[in-house]
């Protein structure tokens, strides 16, 4: 793609700018038209609203497609392509370069958001005269307009770069090392941005005063979908970290990870507490507050990770996007709180929790714990910013803070995961608890015994294994009862799908406990022909060989494990950046992974190399758990056998319930 010399801008730049300005204008018009038509009851104007959503969606899609085209056709007239594009980067990583830096990730956000808005418009196009739907779409238009503005103005995604540039460095070398960079960000964004939909309906419910259970029924699948995408996206990020970064870990509590984890925590609390409102009409303020918090935290997270504030708090003054995001965050909080205060009288619960030993009592406890967890993570994440702003001291909050607090919180959540599914609504008797917890308790005891017999000796891990078994037993019991009564339908529906999700989460928790507590590490200077032994395995360096591509060169050590297949940890030097990137090599197994990294090697043909060996127990089960979470979420989105009528009174006395009816 060549530049248009007279104006100093490329065709891609002109097309991109045009798409963004069209999207901004149509989103604003959509919000105004729909809002005005709803207030005055103008049905003719109301019917034009879908056109704005289609136009905004197409504009966002064109903007993203234009940027992708610019990257793939090496249009170095654009600043962003100069920053992340490269002629020598393979196609796969050039595609991923689209979201490898600020401008592209804003475009990805925008395209996802406009897509959601267009889809919601299509889904509800015949119900636009319903004020709840109309106001929800107004909110979505407003959020979409804000991101069009951010992309067009402060970020200036399609800015023209310096003249005469014919090649660029390509994306960060760490983003050129694994295929997961293709999937992790888009899936994460589908979750992150997806929470805009239930947030929009929550605000619409407050505006219209319809704060009962109707809006929940409209949004429950959207919330579930967003939560599922966010969960899988976070887990894929952990997998990428494991496969690429060479420290054998999946989670380091860095601010970017925390930014995605915070809305996940509040979102998880919401998808549990919403059941209490649907069932008993309680926790209305709480549910709306959780959705507001979830959406606000996505904006705060975007501010933290995209404004430059993470590198230095002084970027507040220089950053162009930061103040806007912070301002938008403030607007969300103030408007939402004002609306909640305005509708306070209607948000009061018609009843109270009868007993803490009940399903709703357990959900409340679950919510308190998730909220505490979110508070702890938020505090740790913003604490350095607060200290730097107030005292001009640059500090970091270490991993021990998060580990110390997340461990007991995680254990309590595992306990609740075991107990809550077997509790009935309203109250439980001792006999009933004894009966329903017997099998899960046995499974927990067996899990504990197996752990001890396998050599586990650290008490936090042992408690995690025991509680994991307890919770898995409870989820398994629910699924067995459900499938016995309903056949294959016992695996679908929110309650049963939820139990499959629980099993996935338990697997992840157990894998984390095992790998955090029992990873063994050793570093060896391996010599060709001289095997070394570690943790019951032998490792033999076969050779050190060189490799080279157009963009990089490097060394890899061929290391045979137990006299069998050779694995090849490598160090790659990206020549344009002069950066060395280690690439681990992993032998994966059901009981443990053997993870090799090349720490030092001098030259091809060398007879020795420094290799680090990590023995990671049960790590594979983390990815299997992630797959179960995804499958369970999909199954939970299907209607179960007995679907409640959305208009049924929710505050009425609840008849005695078969034990598997709800999560």
């Amino acid at each position, binding site marked *: 793609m060549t530049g248009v010399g007279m104006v100093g801008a490329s065709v891609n730049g002109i097309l991109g700018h045009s798409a963004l300005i069209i999207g901004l204008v149509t989103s604003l018009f959509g919000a105004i038209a729909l809002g005005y038509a709803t207030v005055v009851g103008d049905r003719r104007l109301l019917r034009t609203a879908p056109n704005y959503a289609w136009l905004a969606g197409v504009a966002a899609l064109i903007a993203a497609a234009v940027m992708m085209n610019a990257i793939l056709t090496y249009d170095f007239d654009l600043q962003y392509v100069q920053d992340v594009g490269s002629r020598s980067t393979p196609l796969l990583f050039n595609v991923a370069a689209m979201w490898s830096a600020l401008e592209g990730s804003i475009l990805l956000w925008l395209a996802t958001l406009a897509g959601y808005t267009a889809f919601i418009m299509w889904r509800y196009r015949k119900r636009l005269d319903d004020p709840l739907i109309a106001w929800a779409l107004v909110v979505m238009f407003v959020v979409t307009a804000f991101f069009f503005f951010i992309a067009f103005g402060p970020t200036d995604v399609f800015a023209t770069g310096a003249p005469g540039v014919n090649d660029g460095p390509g994306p960060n070398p760490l983003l050129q090392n694994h295929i997961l960079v293709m999937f992790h960000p888009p899936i994460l964004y589908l979750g992150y941005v997806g929470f805009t939909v239930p947030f929009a309906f929550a605000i619409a419910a407050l505006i219209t*005063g319809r*704060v009962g259970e109707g809006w929940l029924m409209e949004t429950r699948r959207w919330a579930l979908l967003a939560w599922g995408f966010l969960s899988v996206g976070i887990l894929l990020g952990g997998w990428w970290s494991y496969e690429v970064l060479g420290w054998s870990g999946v989670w380091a509590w860095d601010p970017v990870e925390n930014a995605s984890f915070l809305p996940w925590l509040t979102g998880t609390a919401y998808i549990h507490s919403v059941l209490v409102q649907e069932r008993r009409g309680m926790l209305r303020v709480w549910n709306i507050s959780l959705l507001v918090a979830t959406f606000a935290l996505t904006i705060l997270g975007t501010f933290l990770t995209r404004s430059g504030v993470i590198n230095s708090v002084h970027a507040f003054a220089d950053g162009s996007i930061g103040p806007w995001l912070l301002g938008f965050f403030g607007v969300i909080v103030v408007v939402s709180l004002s609306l909640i205060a305005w509708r306070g009288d*209607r948000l*009061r619960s018609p009843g109270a929790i009868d007993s803490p030993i009940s399903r709703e009592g357990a959900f409340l406890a679950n919510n308190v714990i998730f909220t505490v967890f979110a508070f702890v993570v938020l*505090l740790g994440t913003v604490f350095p910013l607060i200290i730097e702003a107030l005292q001009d001291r640059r500090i*970091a909050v270490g991993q021990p*803070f998060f580990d110390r*607090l997340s461990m007991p919180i995680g254990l309590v959540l595992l306990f609740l995961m075991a107990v809550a599914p077997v509790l009935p609504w309203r109250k439980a008797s001792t006999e009933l608890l004894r009966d329903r917890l017997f099998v899960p308790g046995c499974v927990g005891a067996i899990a504990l015994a197996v752990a001890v017999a396998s050599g586990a000796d650290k008490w936090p891990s042992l408690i995690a294994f025991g509680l994991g078994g307890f919770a898995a037993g409870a989820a398994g019991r629910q699924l067995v009862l459900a499938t016995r009564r309903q056949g294959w339908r016992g695996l679908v529906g929110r309650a049963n799908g939820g139990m499959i999700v629980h099993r996935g989460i338990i697997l992840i928790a157990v894998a984390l406990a095992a790998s955090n507590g029992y990873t063994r590490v050793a570093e060896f200077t391996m010599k060709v022909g001289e095997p070394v032994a570690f943790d019951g395995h032998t490792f033999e360096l076969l050779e050190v060989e060189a490799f080279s591509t157009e963009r990089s060169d490097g060394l890899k050590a061929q290391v045979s494990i137990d006299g069998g297949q050779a694995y090849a940890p490598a160090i790659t030097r990206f020549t344009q950046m002069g950066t060395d990137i280690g690439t681990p090599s992993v032998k994966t197994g059901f009981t443990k992974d053997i993870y090799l990294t090349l720490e030092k090697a001098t030259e091809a043909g060398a007879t020795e190399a420094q290799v680090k060996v990590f023995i990671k127990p049960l790590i594979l089960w983390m990815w299997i758990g992630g797959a179960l979470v995804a499958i369970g979420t999909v199954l939970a989105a299907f209607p179960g056998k007995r679907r409640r009528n959305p208009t049924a009174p929710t*505050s009425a006395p609840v008849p005695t319930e078969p034990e598997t009816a709800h999560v």
Partner: protein
Amino acid sequence: MGPDELARLEEERRFLLRSITDLEREYEAGDVDDDDYRTLMDGYTARAAAVMRTIDEGRAALPAKRRTRPTVVAGWVVGVLALAVLSGWLVARSSGQRVAGQTLTGGQPADEVAVALTEARALLGTDLAGAFDRFRRVTELEPDNAEALTYTAWILVQNTRFTEDADLIQTSLDAAVDTFERVVADDPGYADAHCLYAVTAARFLPEPDLELAAEQGQLCLDSNPPAGMLGLVQDFVEGLEASTDDTRPDATVADSAP
């Protein structure tokens, strides 16, 4: 009456009141005759009145604001305060100086090791206890870290100068010598361990082992010690070679170790 039903009635009230306004406008414009106007107006008014009455009843039936028991409120306040204090104390305790390139929070263990080592080096000349804590943190994260082990041992040795408790001195020196032995065996190319072990053997052991000191001093020189240490160690080794049975080497190198 639930809030959704109440909102529906309010929407109906808005519609009826707007219809009355529209009807009056049309009547004034002469588009509606008197009879139709009266019939329609009576209908709308009656419906609006009925709806407004139902709304009032519905509002009255909304759950009243419940009084929360003071003990419950106090419990929540105490809980929130306890959480705030505990997490504030922990976050302050878990924070430290941020060095260039380090992330705001968390990070890989290797990053934490690098930060702790940086801090420990900076504290070595001014705050031995602080430096010791950092080096110990490194050995928790990387039990075989040669630098942290070496300087942990060296600080133990240094501390013997500030106590007259013979048992404590002996325990510290034993622990230090064991650590030096471990490091020079595991990482023979690490010069600092040889240098500091040599100084310890010559100057701090109750019965100086000059042969060991000379051997470790030479290994230090052979291992390319840091530039700042090189000249001092050379003088130290030469002093050892020149020393007679009761001569002890110059103490300068011990005082100027990093």
